[in-house]
């Protein structure tokens, strides 16, 4: 076993030796497959890590924003004269002002250009930005907002997703413009005259015939509410014009490349007149995707010609982006103990602006029937506007909402048929090479191993521990899959100096998931250098190549492949030099231990420095490799959702829980929890475990108590005093992860990624365990004690009624 030690330097003031922790060793690899320490560990433990909030510039202005008090209204008058006159106020901006800026498109959005930088004429949700002030400090900016006079004429709001689809509902966006930014959204057509901004359809077989011939038909409606990401660092953006009057932006974003494209489109500027830089993020979870504060802050910087920074308060965060609330209606036919058809009608509440809703409804919507064998499938997914804050991506990208529905129903069906829920799932789970509902054969599909490992861990075949008193114990399991966003693109540049030290230029954002460490491990392995010799250059659109997005668990595969291929180019240049010198075949050479040598004969080779000298005659030189990993999909048939290849690969997930329900208080106590996910190869096993467990706890909160509660379009719990997220006390007593490794043939060293896998199956597993414990079926999230008690009371009433009649 190779010993790993890591020396961490602390701000140059001294060096601290950290002892080696337990390693996980993968045969033949010296860095990949080992749980090396995070690249950023010392910076983070000392609090010296760079965040946008630490960047101060002289003359920097601060922003405060006046927001709509109405869910839907016409703006009839804005008078900003008094605010503008206040000493220290540099700019007071309205939507009309933005629209009047020469060459500026005041609307933006990744699917449709439907969201105004500041409201133009109309507001569509409470909390929508209407007037922005840039002033010498935040308090002054807030004072100035008090002096702005606005009059509104309220319009009837559309607040419920099922109401919003009715023809008589007021239409929020009578005209839509497609954004045209992403290839996978090219099919999204604009110009609707209803609140459905995107309708996904999948048709396979003949569901109606299967329903007619079925032994039994199951119909259930499952709901999950809108929720908050709550990255501990709220959104923050700083923009300024540099000495050549280029727009420079520092932003806490997961999409630097996209933000540059979007600002270029909004402000009508060439891409190279815009520079986006991203330091470390204090969490993202999907909240920081696409453009958020950047358009507004850039507009203010252009107008004031001063640096402008806007940091959202937590309360503003709540009305900026949310997780889609979903109503999923499932109808499933069973014949001879097997599922023969499933029809899914899924309504996604995307709020006032589409944001990335259409992509979620498409890319996650096609998995709505589950990863199970069924000859007939019908899916309708509707992305629907309502007068609520916009909904976007949230760790799992909509898949947790559909698994909540289909894997709750899998249990309902298994129980009704008297089948064992694990056996029922395994019997229906797709095998390697079988076609998904889309017609795409599944590959490297560790679903069955995930289910089996989860069942084994929870002791499924053993008898349950007996319940006592008012407390009832139950066990539950759930499984499901997410497909990776396809097509997408990751570019990377790797440079090596003659001393063997390496820089990676990548636009992948480090937000806690360990992407920097993953990239450094892969490149160190490929080039045969030490992990500590690799440095990551953080996203900077002036120097780091295009990357579609840091999200969707895609970076390990896509950016991992890109950095590996870029490093391989350097390796082959070095190998060519060594091969020529030693008169051997370059293919017989390996890079290991900072040397290039003949496989099996380490003495026949050169150090990296010697190879550089042989090539350049100098040690001051660098070698550069560049590569792009681009995955492709075959576009789905718009009417049937069929495609021979709808995705590059899959993320199978399973969760097993044992819990106790207190029938007097309705409290749920999770006793055992196993988060299981197929990572392909685990590049850093410890980080894979952290991803599984972290995403699982977040979804434990979303299952048991998290919910954004709206009344007449007004959020009632929009602060962390009222909106609870899991604390350390919510961690289950026995809480483990199991990393299943089914390597993918084209993943870097077989890796796929695992950032969301632990999130996917939590809710259904818990609901299934609750039914096992107390015999009630909950179909609405969150599963609060009140909800449990009311179900228990309803059941008692029903039983009493049955006895008396």
């Amino acid at each position, binding site marked *: 076993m190779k010993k790993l030690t890591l020396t961490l330097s602390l701000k140059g003031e001294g060096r601290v030796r950290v002892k080696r922790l337990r390693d996980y060793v993968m045969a033949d690899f010296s860095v990949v497959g080992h749980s090396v320490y995070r690249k950023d560990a010392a910076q983070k433990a000392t609090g010296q890590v760079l965040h946008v909030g630490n960047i101060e510039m002289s003359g920097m202005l601060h922003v405060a924003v006046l927001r709509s008090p109405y869910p839907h209204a016409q703006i009839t008058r804005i008078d900003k004269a008094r605010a503008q006159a206040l000493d220290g106020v540099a700019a007071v901006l309205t939507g009309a002002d933005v629209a009047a800026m020469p060459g500026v498109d005041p609307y933006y959005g990744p699917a449709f250009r439907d969201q105004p930088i500041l409201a133009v004429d109309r507001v569509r949700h409470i909390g929508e930005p209407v007037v922005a002030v840039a002033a010498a400090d935040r308090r002054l900016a807030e004072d100035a907002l008090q002096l702005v006079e606005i009059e509104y004429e309220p319009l009837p709001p559309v607040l419920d997703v099922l109401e919003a689809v009715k023809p008589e509902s007021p239409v929020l966006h009578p005209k839509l413009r497609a954004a045209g930014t992403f290839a996978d959204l090219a099919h999204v057509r604009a110009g609707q005259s209803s609140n459905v901004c995107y309708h996904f359809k999948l048709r396979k077989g003949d569901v109606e015939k299967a329903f007619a011939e079925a032994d039994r038909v199951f119909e259930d409606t499952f709901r999950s509410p809108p929720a908050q990401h709550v990255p501990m660092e709220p959104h923050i953006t700083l923009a300024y014009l540099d000495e050549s009057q280029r727009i420079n932006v520092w932003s806490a974003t997961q999409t630097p490349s996209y933000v540059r494209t979007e600002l270029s489109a909004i402000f009508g500027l060439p891409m190279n007149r815009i520079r986006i830089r991203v330091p470390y993020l204090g969490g993202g979870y999907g909240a920081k995707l696409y453009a958020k504060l950047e358009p507004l802050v850039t507009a203010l910087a252009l107008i004031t010609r001063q640096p402008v920074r806007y940091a959202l308060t937590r309360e503003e965060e709540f009305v900026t982006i949310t997780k889609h609330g979903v109503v999923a209606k499932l109808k499933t036919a069973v014949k001879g103990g097997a599922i023969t058809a499933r029809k899914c009608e899924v309504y996604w509440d995307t709020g006032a602006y589409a944001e990335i809703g259409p992509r979620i409804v498409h890319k996650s919507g096609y998995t709505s029937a589950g990863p199970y064998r069924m000859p007939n499938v019908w899916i309708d997914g509707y992305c629907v506007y309502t007068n609520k804050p916009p909904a976007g991506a949230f760790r799992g990208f909509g898949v947790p909402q559909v698994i909540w529905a289909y894997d709750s129903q899998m249990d309902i069906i298994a129980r009704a048929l008297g089948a064992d829920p694990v056996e029922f799932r395994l019997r229906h789970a797709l095998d390697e090479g079988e076609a998904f509902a889309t017609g795409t054969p599944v590959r490297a599909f560790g679903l069955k191993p995930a289910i089996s490992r989860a069942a084994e861990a929870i002791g499924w075949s053993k008898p349950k521990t007996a319940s006592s008193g008012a407390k009832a114990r139950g066990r539950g399991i759930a499984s499901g899959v997410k497909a990776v966003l396809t097509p997408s693109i990751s570019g990377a540049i790797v440079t090596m100096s003659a001393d063997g030290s390496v820089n990676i230029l990548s636009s992948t954002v480090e937000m*806690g998931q360990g992407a920097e460490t993953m990239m450094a491990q892969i490149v160190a392995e490929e080039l045969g250098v030490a992990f500590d010799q690799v440095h990551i250059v953080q996203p900077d659109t002036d120097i780091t190549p295009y990357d579609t997005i840091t999200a969707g668990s895609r970076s390990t595969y896509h950016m991992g492949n890109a950095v590996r291929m870029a490093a391989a180019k350097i390796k082959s240049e070095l190998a060519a030099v060594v091969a020529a010198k030693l008169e051997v075949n370059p293919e017989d050479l390996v890079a290991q231990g900072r040397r290039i040598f003949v496989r099996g004969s380490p003495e026949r080779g050169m150090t990296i420095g010697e190879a550089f000298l042989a090539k350049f005659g100098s040690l001051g030189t660098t070698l550069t490799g560049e590569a792009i990993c681009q995955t492709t999909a075959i576009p789905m048939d718009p009417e049937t959702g069929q495609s021979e290849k709808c995705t590059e690969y899959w993320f199978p997930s399973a969760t097993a829980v044992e819990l106790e329900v207190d029938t007097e208080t309705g409290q749920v106590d999770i006793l055992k929890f196993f988060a299981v996910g197929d990572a392909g190869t685990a590049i850093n096993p410890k980080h894979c475990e952290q991803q599984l467990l972290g995403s699982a706890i977040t979804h434990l909160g979303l299952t048991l108590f998290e919910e954004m509660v709206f009344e007449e379009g007004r959020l009632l719990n929009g602060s962390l005093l009222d909106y609870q997220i899991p604390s350390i006390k919510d961690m289950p007593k026995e809480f483990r992860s199991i990393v299943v490794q089914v390597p993918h043939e084209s993943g870097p060293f077989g890796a796929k990624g695992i950032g969301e896998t632990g999130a996917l199956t939590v809710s259904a597993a818990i609901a299934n365990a609750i039914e096992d414990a107390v015999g009630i079926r909950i179909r609405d999230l969150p599963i609060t004690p009140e909800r449990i008690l009311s179900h228990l009371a309803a059941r008692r009433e029903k039983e009493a009624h049955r006895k008396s009649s």
Partner: protein
Amino acid sequence: MKRELALTVNGRLAKLQVEDADTLLEVLRDQLNLWSVREGCGVGACGTCTVLMDGKPVSSCLVLARRAEGREIVTVEGLAASGKLDVIQETFIEERALQCGYCTPGFILSVKALLDENSTPTDDEVREYLSGNLCRCAGYGDIVRAVRVAQEKRRAGAT
């Protein structure tokens, strides 16, 4: 109106001009550039802005700077001022008890206060004490383990 405020921050006396409405968080960040002190919620509910005031953890977003007059404030910058990491910082690294790292300074200070108060806390006491610090990456299992390892190291004489 600004008035003078004198307090000790990380062992050094600081004399600052502050407004009555300034919070300790604002003063530590804006005047002393102690970037480890971060606002997460502004209402004392997340623990991200935790600092030690006379050894006790407080949410600096809720403490008016005036209230810190004459007090001793410690931030994470003060733990490793000599260039050597505090044993709790070192253990957070070794036990992988950090991911995005935004909540980490607050957690480290809360753990320090916990172990200073109670060198052998029970599991329930650890969970109770740290329940005011939120981590959305949810690395809670790693944090609990870090507390235990740090506790053992401190008992063996590490600082």
